[in-house]
């Protein structure tokens, strides 16, 4: 934030630098207009040329004009929908019945809905397992590949492919691998076990299969962020550790890990939040099946709203999820930051 402060551009042509009292001109409009009256009273200090007042008065207007479109969009398509989601969650939308205000009834129903808890459990399992494995794999890769090597750029580009490809296409890629008719994976399983299995229609294998897809897609993300973080660490502490004869594990435990913590917090937070609201790959691969084995929360909201037209109930679910996301992100950043103090 520091560098954003001295960047004031209100200086009129010819002024060598902002005069005292000028730097706050944009916000402090009342003081500004006072100065303006003074100026018209003929007591203007010599370093304020006559063009100054008009220019200064125009600045907040420009500022407003520059910010207005973005603010309007954020208001209309983020803040307003959030409010409307809460309002909708107090309403009953049932087919063939008029929309009615029903207070907290949707929430009461939701908290008694065992399917909701089940999908929440599935989502949490998915999030925790996927994020943890991705973090560990990404960290290992980053540590082992941190030094410059040949074709680094090319290799990094190749590793980036899974996360750049559309999630829907990732779904296709893995459908082809998992399919019992044409799949490479299931052929391998057939060689080992003697009979083919259809991974995605097996209730106990479907969720691990989807977690594996997520790991394939997002480990490169962890790797790239952690690599960038590791490469930007100062070298002196590591040289000192080497001189003192520190082994690789203690160097990692007492130097890399603590110094990397801010990067780790960001990486884990982003990954966990995205995993918590996973939708595309699950939609393409299993549609939540078999049964409810892979019905993650976002998919449940989608089905409730757009297959069963229960918009009120879906909105209550969505609001609950949003609150959970806020708690989740607070918990993650707190627990990771808490470890900083320990070390």
């Amino acid at each position, binding site marked *: *934030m520091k560098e954003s402060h001295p960047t004031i551009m209100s200086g009129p042509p010819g002024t060598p630098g902002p005069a005292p009292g000028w730097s706050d001109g944009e916000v402090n409009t009342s003081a500004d207009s006072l100065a303006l009256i003074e100026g018209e009273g003929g007591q203007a200090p010599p370093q304020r040329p006559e063009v100054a007042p008009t220019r200064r008065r125009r600045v907040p207007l420009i500022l407003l004009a520059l910010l207005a479109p973005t603010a309007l969009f*954020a208001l209309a398509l983020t803040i307003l929908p959030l409010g409307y989601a809460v309002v909708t969650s107090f309403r009953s939308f049932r087919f063939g019945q008029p929309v009615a205000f029903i207070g907290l009834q949707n929430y009461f129903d939701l908290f008694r809905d065992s399917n909701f808890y089940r999908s929440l459990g599935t989502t949490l399992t998915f999030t925790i397992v996927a994020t943890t494995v991705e973090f560990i794999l990404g960290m290992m890769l980053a540590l082992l590949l941190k030094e410059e090597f040949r074709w680094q750029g090319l290799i990094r580009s190749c590793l980036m492919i899974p996360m750049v490809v559309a999630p*829907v296409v990732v779904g296709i890629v893995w459908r*082809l691998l998992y399919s019992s008719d044409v799949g*490479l994976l299931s052929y391998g399983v057939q060689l080992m076990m003697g009979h083919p299995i259809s991974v995605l229609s097996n209730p106990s294998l479907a969720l691990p299969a989807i977690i594996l897809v997520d790991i394939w897609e997002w480990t490169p993300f962890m790797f790239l962020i952690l690599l960038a973080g590791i490469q930007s660490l100062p070298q002196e502490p590591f040289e000192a550790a080497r001189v003192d004869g520190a082994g690789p594990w203690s160097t990692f435990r007492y130097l890399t890990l603590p110094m990397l913590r801010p990067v780790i917090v960001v990486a884990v937070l982003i990954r966990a939040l995205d995993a918590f609201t996973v*939708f595309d790959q699950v939609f393409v691969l299993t549609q939540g099946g078999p049964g409810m084995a892979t019905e993650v929360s976002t998919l449940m909201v989608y089905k409730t709203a757009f297959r069963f037209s229960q918009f009120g109930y879906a909105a209550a679910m969505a609001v609950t999820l949003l609150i959970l996301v806020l708690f989740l*992100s607070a918990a993650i950043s707190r627990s990771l930051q808490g470890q900083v103090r320990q070390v």
Partner: protein
Amino acid sequence: MENPPPVHLSKSKSHRHSSWPVFRLLLLVSALGLTLVPVYWMINTSLKTQVEVFASPPTLYPQKAVLENYVSLFTRRNLGAYLLNSVIIVAGSVSLAMAMGSLAAYALARFHLGHLQERISFWVLATRMIPPVAIVVPIFLMLQYLGFINKYPGLILVYTAMNLPFVVWMMRSFFQEIPVDLEEAAMVDGATRLRSFWDIVLPLAAPGLVATAIFSVIVTYNEFFFALILTSTPAAATLPVGTAALIGKTQTLFGEMAAAGVVATIPLIAFALLVQRHLVRGLTMGAVK
């Protein structure tokens, strides 16, 4: 900081040195293999004939490479229409977001706003963190009220709003890297603020503009959740929605499914290679440079 625990000068050190490159090479090769083989399998399948797709054991490369799957996609499955929709919607929303977001970013980078500055920055980040699922129901109801379901403007509006926080955040950091002196000099020479923004700041920030735009293009082009809910027919549906519908329709036509995946991916790979360097910065909203 604690002192590092007592360390033993390991005698395995020389041993480690000799095995290190080999181990690293193995690791690198397996990481690359695990990443690329699934993608290769999709390309491989897309070039096979309908018969060869089901060959057992599966053939590792097409015995007779054919383009029939690709031809069928465009002649029978409307993929061309979906592609066109995607291009229009991505171009529309990214240019809108770039235009409005750059202006806002410039304002945030150049004007002193006191407390408001931090509050706006917080809002920009917060809107990025709100999961789509939290607002999808009201957005659907609002756009339905406006008659924008399964039409271009609906998705363009939503994607513009989706890209704006990111554009503002990225462009603000790019604008801050441009020295103020240059603009001051121009304004001394009589340029207005808008003129100095247009003639001096924008050209200097061009690499940043390009990187931000390309990144937004990738994210928008891939977006599926809102597209699925707000569009449905070839009249407005984007490529991911068309592809997903294809999966439902074709079921066992794995060749066509794979070809659709390849078609949807080719433009992206080209774009991603262009912004390779900026990709991490973009993914983390600049938290890591």
